[in-house]
């Protein structure tokens, strides 16, 4: 059934039942292929759709979702959500959103090249990437070499009159080459990604992939102790992802984030500014409205060390008696409204990476982190993570280091930031949005090794 037909039926049924309702529909078509030893290894196609509903009955809210969109689902979804509303009880702050005078900024999130470039060409690209990576004598094979594209269409409507839609495209191409030198084996990973095919540069992925696979050759543990630490851009972005929820109003209102009630206070060193920008052209985290339909805008979360604002959806904002910051997040069709960032990044600084390395003499440049879901705790701010990197010697990167953990506390660490480099890099989308960072010299952290 077409979305508009389905929506009309659901809203008519909701009206009959005397409840307000909100629908979120998503349909995704995707393609991916991986190659191995010059041939197609796997090839995936998909075409799915689903719908999530929130029903608002007096002061209670109930949720349901389904991947079956037919006549019977109309009643089933509404009834099931209404039953759930009885269980959920009073939710005084959760309401459907609509404001007639809202103006939405147009943001480019779709590029037709991902659909126009034929599958055959995409397969050729993957083969080409594998072939060119294998030209390096130390690369023995690829663990993965793939290209993946997807296009999704989304509709958000409610009985108050909200009616929005969005279309997004994405492409990612990646390789993980396996390097072998003597008895040493290691896998690297490199990718290009964007909303259109022009984001992909095979040569660039190849260069990075080979370098990532080989750069830790000869890596050793270093002695345990306190070291000056510089986090490479992407590893710092990963740390920011792990601790993003400390900026969530929901987390703060629940007392889990220690930033509760600290808006306006200095919580980090003066050189730190964290921005959430929903309007960066072609970025994965860009959108003109959030998960509830609120128009998005650019904001500083931390400005020169001062906590400017936490991130709110309409529910947490109502609770705090303020306006939503348009940071309502959703996880696909499951109708639970959380808090997400759009493109959230640490503002670039004035130093070059060389400046930072010079300052952090005798320290460690961390270029790889593992085990984030286990070793980083957003409630305490503590982290202790498996890491790899390089010893910093005479202002340059020297011997590679592996089998170490780097540990600290995020709240404490951001107070002691010593230097920030002049280039920002973003990582792939996460459940909380897209994150980016420059290189950051954070001062002393404890490292466990030998």
């Amino acid at each position, binding site marked *: 059934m077409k979305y508009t037909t389905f929506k009309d039926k659901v809203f008519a049924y909701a009206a009959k039942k005397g409840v307000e309702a909100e629908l979120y529909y998503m349909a995704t078509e995707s393609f991916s292929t991986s190659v*191995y030893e010059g*041939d*197609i290894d*796997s*090839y*995936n*196609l*998909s*075409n*799915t759709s*689903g719908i999530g509903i929130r029903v608002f009955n007096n002061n209670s809210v*109930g*949720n*349901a*979702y*389904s*991947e*079956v969109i037919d006549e019977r689902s109309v009643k089933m979804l509404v009834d*099931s959500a209404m*039953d*759930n509303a*009885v*269980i*959920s*009880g009073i939710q005084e702050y959760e309401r459907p959103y609509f404001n007639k005078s809202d103006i939405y900024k147009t943001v480019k999130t779709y590029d037709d090249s991902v659909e126009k470039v034929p599958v055959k060409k995409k397969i050729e690209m993957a083969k080409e990437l594998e072939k060119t990576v294998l030209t390096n004598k130390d690369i023995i094979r690829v*663990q993965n070499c793939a290209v993946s594209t997807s296009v999704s269409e989304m509709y958000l409507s409610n009985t108050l009159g909200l009616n929005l839609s969005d279309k997004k495209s994405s492409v990612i191409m990646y390789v993980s080459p*396996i390097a072998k030198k003597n008895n040493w*084996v*290691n*896998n690297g990973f490199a990718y290009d990604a964007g909303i259109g095919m022009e984001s992909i540069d095979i040569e660039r992925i190849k260069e990075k992939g080979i370098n990532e696979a080989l750069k830790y050759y000869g890596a050793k543990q270093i002695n*345990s*102790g*306190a070291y000056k630490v510089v986090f490479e851009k992407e590893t710092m972005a990963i740390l920011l992802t792990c601790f993003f929820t400390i900026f969530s109003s929901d987390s703060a*209102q*629940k*007392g889990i984030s220690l930033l509760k009630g600290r808006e306006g206070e200095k919580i980090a060193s003066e050189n730190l500014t964290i921005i959430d920008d929903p309007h960066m052209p072609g970025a994965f985290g860009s959108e003109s409205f959030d998960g509830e339909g609120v128009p998005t805008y650019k904001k500083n979360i931390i400005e020169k060390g001062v906590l400017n604002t936490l991130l709110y959806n309409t529910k947490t904002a109502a609770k705090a008696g303020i306006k939503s910051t348009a940071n309502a997040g959703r996880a696909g069709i*499951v*109708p*639970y409204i959380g808090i997400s960032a759009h493109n959230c990044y640490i503002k670039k600084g004035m130093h070059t990476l060389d400046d930072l390395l010079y300052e952090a003499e005798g320290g460690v440049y961390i270029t790889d982190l*593992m*085990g984030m*879901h*286990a*070793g980083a*705790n957003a*409630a*305490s*701010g*503590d982290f*202790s*993570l*498996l890491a790899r990197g390089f010893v910093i010697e005479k202002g340059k990167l020297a011997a590679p280091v592996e*089998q*170490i*953990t*780097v*540990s600290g506390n995020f709240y404490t660490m951001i107070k002691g930031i010593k230097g920030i480099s002049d280039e920002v890099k973003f990582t792939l989308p996460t459940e909380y949005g897209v994150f980016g960072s420059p290189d950051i010299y954070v001062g002393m952290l*404890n*490292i*466990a090794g030998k």
Partner: protein
Amino acid sequence: MLPVFIIEKALDLALENGADFAEIFIEDTLKNTLTMTNDKMEAVISGRIHGYGIRVFSGTKSVYAYSGDFSQRSVYSLAKEVAAALSSKKIDKTDPIILNKQIFENKHIIANYPLAVEAKEKAKIVSETYRIIKTYDPRIVQASVTYLDEDRSIMVANSEGVFTEDRAVRTRLVMNAVAGDGNQNQTGGESPGRRMGFEMFEKVNVEELAKSAAKTALTMLSAPECPSGVMPVVIGNGFGGVIFHEACGHALEATSVAKGNSVFAGKLGEKIANEKVTAIDDGTLESEWGSNTIDDEGTKTTKNVLIENGILKNYLVDRLGARRMNMEPNGCSRRQSYKYAPTSRMSNTFIAPGEDESDAIIASVADGLYAKKMGGGSVNPVTGEFNFAVQEGYLIKNGKIDRPVRGATLIGKGSEVLPKIDMVGKDLALAEGMCGSASGSIPTCVGQPMIRVSSMTVGGREAK
């Protein structure tokens, strides 16, 4: 679900268009989630996941497609499309596929289907558990309790004549406690789950676990930072088994072994662990969280001994891996949903009980760490590098458990840590978790008795 004649015809079409193997997987799953936090029921969500996937092979090449469109036309065109994508030669097939359904005995009897349980009963469990955590101590500043149930019906049919169904019901209660003193927070959690219906709450002592979650958070709140360095580590039973899951289990999956990417590839019959270590993956255990009657390729699940007295005995092999490795599939191919092609995965994976007494294990350590409760972990199967977090840890001084310490992480390489598991206790216990890998996030159990690792790198925030 689809009529049999459509399934047969779709498999025929796939073979005619160049596949040497074709498989159809259909899933219809109902889920319910209830979450209470901040003294409120925060979300009550019901959902339905419904779709199918068609997978074809030609040699070791595989193509997978999935869709939610069950129309006959769409199923047939998808079958042709996936087969054509193999770009192998079309064959003149003469014998049409005739499927005869075979149902395997389901040991995991469900007494109380979640569908038949009123939502307010589920809500009662959630709010009672929430209250137990929240009122345990004034320093418990926040709690969250999530009830989850899942009723998953699957059908698998393939061109080799497999045609079977299964219905798996799972129930879980995820409890988290946050202890805080205004300046800092610490967390504790417990997440019991079973391949059972609502009767799980008669079998599992929720109250005790809820208190244990609160107690962990409180213990860690007053604990100093863990020292870092290399030391002997005693790992407690139950979730401690995550060490084997990460350090070895993933590297024994065909996904890594088949292409030679695993450190344990080509080592069958070789000694890879201390002789005290016997490790098993057993998907047949009655009503356990990671158990299945059949896997997601329709193969009956089995008990697979992976390591016996230190010797590598077996891998976890799915159909595609079997083709590469020249082995038989052994019932371990799993997927989160029809949105993933299945691959070799763990079910209930544990180190078998040994001969050492727990007291003797602790007493044997002069200066080390006791990781009583573990958090999650991860591994890179190519290098074998693993890491996991200690949720509740204590120092061991002169053979006695000393003060609690927080923030510890254990790291190492699988092939190096297995020979160092030099004491294995008797108190085997399983613990439930979700394992994320190539075919999505699936329910698995980890497990072990108390073990000692003679030396490991411990990462903490305190210089030793």
